[in-house]
């Protein structure tokens, strides 16, 4: 690689490559899978089975303002507009012939599907339907919700047994044995990538922040698609070096403006209105220096410790109690040195929304950081109302300014 390439460029390169590789694999008759976003990819990476992630696919489509046609198609088929927008876009894409174009990445029709429900239950129904409609096998890796905020022994045993069963089924699928040495190497790489991901967050928390806006939502693609690969290590290290450089030079996130306010953005991005929301933030000098969402991919465990791996995957914030959700947000606000918080009441994501009100109150009680909530959707462009968003952001700025004043 040329010495002048940036991490952003590498990211863009890999973001395209994952789809191209999947299409190429499919073309030579290699089985390609579709998977949920925080799956124990280590097993599939070890078996050389390429995975494509429909949630990422739908997010890209929505960010490029192409979601509506697919949503309408899925709704015409009988899916209610109440169900997850990512799911509707995905089914619309299938119903429209699973064709890529300039905006729509070419996700090939899968030969198998993988579902790990460590962050919601909707995906179980999504993948049930995919398996049935496409006539392909479904690998269900069940990680039961943890209502008391800890993954108990019974859950660990259950998940471990599912891991063993998965290995057997993957060996049957591919006709190849599961390479335990390679598995160790993949775990090692995954562990390092998770560590680097966490490190990146620490750096983002610097004042002023070396990362801007929805940056880490973009780098997230690597952690979703290639969490177990050396290429991700390369890009993350480069990004970290770039950020360390900026910190050393005292550079902030914006070229032409100061970082006036720092916020925690809670939830998935409002992809159809990314430009509008990002622009509104910029206009007030607001930078996003913390979010609970990308944190989900920092899956940390010791190499070779499968119990630890089971626990780590089962402990994604969405899968834990209200108390843990509050703890996580407080930690993020503190690490990000946030002045305010913006909660995305994402119509498509009931998991993230159903404890938001109580969590907000508790987080506020603990941190004193002002917050607002806005209505939007991760995929459906029809939900967001610009006037509402603009008014609320302005109100938040006024609250943050007032707090600053009073602390002077």
């Amino acid at each position, binding site marked *: 690689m040329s010495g002048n390439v940036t991490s952003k460029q590498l990211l863009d390169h890999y973001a395209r490559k994952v789809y191209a590789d999947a299409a190429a694999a499919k073309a030579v008759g290699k089985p390609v899978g579709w998977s949920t976003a925080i799956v124990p990819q280590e097993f599939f990476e070890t078996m050389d089975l390429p995975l494509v992630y429909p949630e990422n696919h739908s997010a890209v489509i929505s960010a490029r303002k192409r979601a509506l046609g697919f949503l*309408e198609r899925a*709704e*015409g088929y*009988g899916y209610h507009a109440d169900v997850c927008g990512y799911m509707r876009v995905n089914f619309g894409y299938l119903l429209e012939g699973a064709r890529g174009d300039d905006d729509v990445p070419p996700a090939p029709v899968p030969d198998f599907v993988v579902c790990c429900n460590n962050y919601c239950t909707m995906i179980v129904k999504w993948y049930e339907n995919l398996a049935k409609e496409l006539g392909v096998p479904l690998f269900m890796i069940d990680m039961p919700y943890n209502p008391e905020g800890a993954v108990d022994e019974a859950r660990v045993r259950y998940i471990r047994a599912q891991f063993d069963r998965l290995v057997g089924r993957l060996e049957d699928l591919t006709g190849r044995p599961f390479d335990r040495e390679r598995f160790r190497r993949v775990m090692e790489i995954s562990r390092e990538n998770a560590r680097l991901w966490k490190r990146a967050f620490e750096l983002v928390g610097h004042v002023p922040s070396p990362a801007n806006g929805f940056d880490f939502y973009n780098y997230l693609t690597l952690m979703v698609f290639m969490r177990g690969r050396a290429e991700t290590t390369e890009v993350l290290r480069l990004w970290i070096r770039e950020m360390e450089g900026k910190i050393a030079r005292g550079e902030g996130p914006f070229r032409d403006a100061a970082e006036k306010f720092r916020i925690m953005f809670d939830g998935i991005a409002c992809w159809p209105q990314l430009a509008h929301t990002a622009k509104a933030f910029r206009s007030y000098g607001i930078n996003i220096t913390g979010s609970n969402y990308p944190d989900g991919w920092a899956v940390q465990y010791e190499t070779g410790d499968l119990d630890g791996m089971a626990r780590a995957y089962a402990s994604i914030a969405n899968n834990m109690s209200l108390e843990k959700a509050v703890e996580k947000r407080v930690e993020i606000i503190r690490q990000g040195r946030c002045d305010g918080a913006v909660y995305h009441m994402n119509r498509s994501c009931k998991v993230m929304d159903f404890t938001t009100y109580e969590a907000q109150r508790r987080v506020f009680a603990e941190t004193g950081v002002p917050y607002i909530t806005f209505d939007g959707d991760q995929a459906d*462009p*029809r939900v*967001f*109302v610009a*006037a509402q968003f603009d008014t609320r952001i302005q109100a938040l700025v006024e609250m943050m300014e007032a707090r600053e004043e009073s602390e002077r």
Partner: protein
Amino acid sequence: MHTLGIDIGSASSKAVILGDNGEVAGQAVVPVGTGTTGPERALHEALRLAGIAPGDVARTVATGYGRVTWQGADRQVSEITCHARGVLHRMPEARTIIDIGGQDVKAIEVDPDRGFVRNFVMNDKCAAGTGRFLEVMARVLGLEVERLAEVSETSARTVSISSICTVFAESEVISHLSRGEPVPDVLAGIHQSVAKRVAGLVSRLGVRPPVVLTGGVAKNRGVVLALEKELRTEIRIAPSCQLTGALGAALIAREDLSKK
């Protein structure tokens, strides 16, 4: 042997009288609906045009929102069944009927072999996609509802409205106008909005041509063109498009008599 079909909607009342030969002897539309004098007025106007007295009516069937409470019908039949009958009487080739009323939208799949209605879907929960939506928007634009089609003809492009909710869509339209967007272009967006909403409903049913449009909004050519674009199929307008329900009711009354 005259029969009367009366369609009592929430916003209008329609009456059709069929004569001895089964042809329409008189019909009327009054722009007020259930709970008002509308039904009686429609009834009397139809009688007057038919040149008969109330006692000359052998059987009456009522339909529409107000069918259950109105006194004076021998029986009441749903507007789904009546619209299907009314449309098929004039256009026997119809397979999908879309009725855009004042406050609701229905799509009906008809199958003459099996007894008319095979399937239907309705939206009567919100104003989006109905006549009410157009009334609200017409007011914002300062136009009469009857002029909407004519004004939209001069549009150069479509200014899209993203909100599915009538209230928020109204805000969007106002903000487009205040930014100087030409009225015909905004109107094109409004028509597209109605068309998308209706098309969304119809696609749950499956579009089987020929598609026939009934209801007051069918008179708005702008909506019709937008709907043709969304559904990707030709749309035919039923003659006397507001009266198909009442016609169907009158036909059913006539059938009842022939069965006795």
